[in-house]
């Protein structure tokens, strides 16, 4: 298996690990947004969706898979940043950017912002310790679950300060995807000019859509359009 070790530890192999884990996390982010947009369908539908997810036997395998992808993504990023710093020990006195979007320059810092947000978000909406009025799912006595995800979401985001933190994180996520989705296509070998333009536009659109969709939830709650039943 030396070939696999050699491949995965090469600069391109590490980028491929980053691209594949990024692709998986990108898929999760889309599904997560679509799931959460059901908050606009009302408390009953949203809580039923939450109960279906919580009672799903695939819940823990999916969580472990996601955690694995986050570690693979961060691990490859950390390894590459260390190499990159070593590759230019002495910097320039004067430097001008020749091209490159704003998004690409925020990848590393934005990634750290997202990591901090993921930790906070899990404590806030999954574990509940960072949430004043968090209610866990309960057995409904008939083998099913009764969940309060709608109440948790609305009471958790009613505070404008909390909603602002969520919005900042979603903008960071949008920027990360606007470069990341395009970049992962190139890393996986889709650099042909035909696919390149498509990938660039798809990345921008997905980044924008995810930011808009997730921010819409926070804004609707702060504005009182989505309220407690």
């Amino acid at each position, binding site marked *: 298996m030396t070939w696999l070790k050699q491949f995965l530890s090469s600069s391109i192999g590490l980028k491929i690990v980053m691209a594949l884990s990024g692709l998986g996390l990108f898929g999760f982010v889309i599904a997560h947004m679509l799931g959460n947009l059901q908050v606009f369908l009302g408390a009953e539908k949203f809580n039923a969706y939450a109960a279906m997810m919580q009672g799903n036997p695939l819940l823990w395998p999916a969580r472990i898979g996601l955690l694995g992808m986050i570690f693979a993504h961060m691990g490859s990023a950390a390894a590459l940043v260390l190499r990159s710093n070593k590759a230019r020990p002495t910097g320039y006195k004067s430097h001008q950017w020749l*091209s490159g979007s704003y998004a690409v320059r925020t990848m590393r810092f934005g990634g750290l912002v997202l990591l901090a947000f993921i930790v906070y978000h899990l404590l806030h909406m999954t574990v509940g310790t960072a949430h004043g009025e968090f209610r866990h799912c309960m057995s409904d006595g008939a083998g099913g679950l009764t969940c309060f995800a709608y109440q948790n979401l609305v009471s958790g985001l009613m505070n404008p300060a909390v909603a602002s933190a969520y919005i900042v994180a979603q903008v960071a996520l949008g920027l990360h995807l606007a470069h990341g989705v395009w970049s992962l296509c190139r890393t996986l*070998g889709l650099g042909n000019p035909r696919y390149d333009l498509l990938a660039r536009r798809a990345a921008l659109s997905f980044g924008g859509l995810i930011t808009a969709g997730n921010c819409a939830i926070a804004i609707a709650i702060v504005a009182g359009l989505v309220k407690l039943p």
Partner: protein
Amino acid sequence: MDLTLNIWRQTSKDSAGNFETYQLKDINEHMSFLEMLDVLNEQLEGQGKEPVAFEHDCREGICGSCGLMINGAPHGHLPRTTTCQLHMREFKHGDNITIEPFRAGAFPVLKDLVVDRSALDRIVQAGGFISVRTGSAPDANAVPVPKDEADRAFDAATCIGCGACVASCPNAAAMLFTGAKVTHLGLLPQGQPERYDRVTKMVHQMDKEEFGHCSNFGECTVACPKGIPLDVISQMNRDLLVAQLKGRSA
């Protein structure tokens, strides 16, 4: 025009360097950037000082020797231009110009503005060649090459190995350089037998030289005096993936 130059001076590979400021008067706008440095060196020699060491050879924009970081851009701010083809008419009277060597761990500074770019040669030695006798030039059309692949191979083959891609890359990566060689030889029929061994060996050597990785900033393709497109990097990534599927290793 009168200019103020801030130039990196370093006496040898192991010594510490620093920036020195020089004043130049009455520089002709038709001079090339290197001719302007020649004037500076004559002035320095006249004063009994050590002239500024910089690399140059053809002064026609095709040899790749004259790589300088000029005001934070490799070969200066003018697109698709080598330092020797950059003329002083691109600057204004009273300009302050900072001139630095190309910076990368793999490009140690030898003296002043001269860096050792042998790391790029070692990447080529690892696989950037075709190991069969090519003989004399074949008859036209004896070996069919699809037009678009011939064009892409030719675009990649225009690389002059100056190292501007490495100099401009925030990660000091040699991906555009290596990708250009991999694409140039890998797309042509003569390069097919060694295509997948070549890419694994060249990428392995590139990593061994401690160049960085590609974050798709795209600085390299803008800095490249030959405008080599970014898709050569993606071609290299794809060839490396296929090489794994074919069971090739370095």
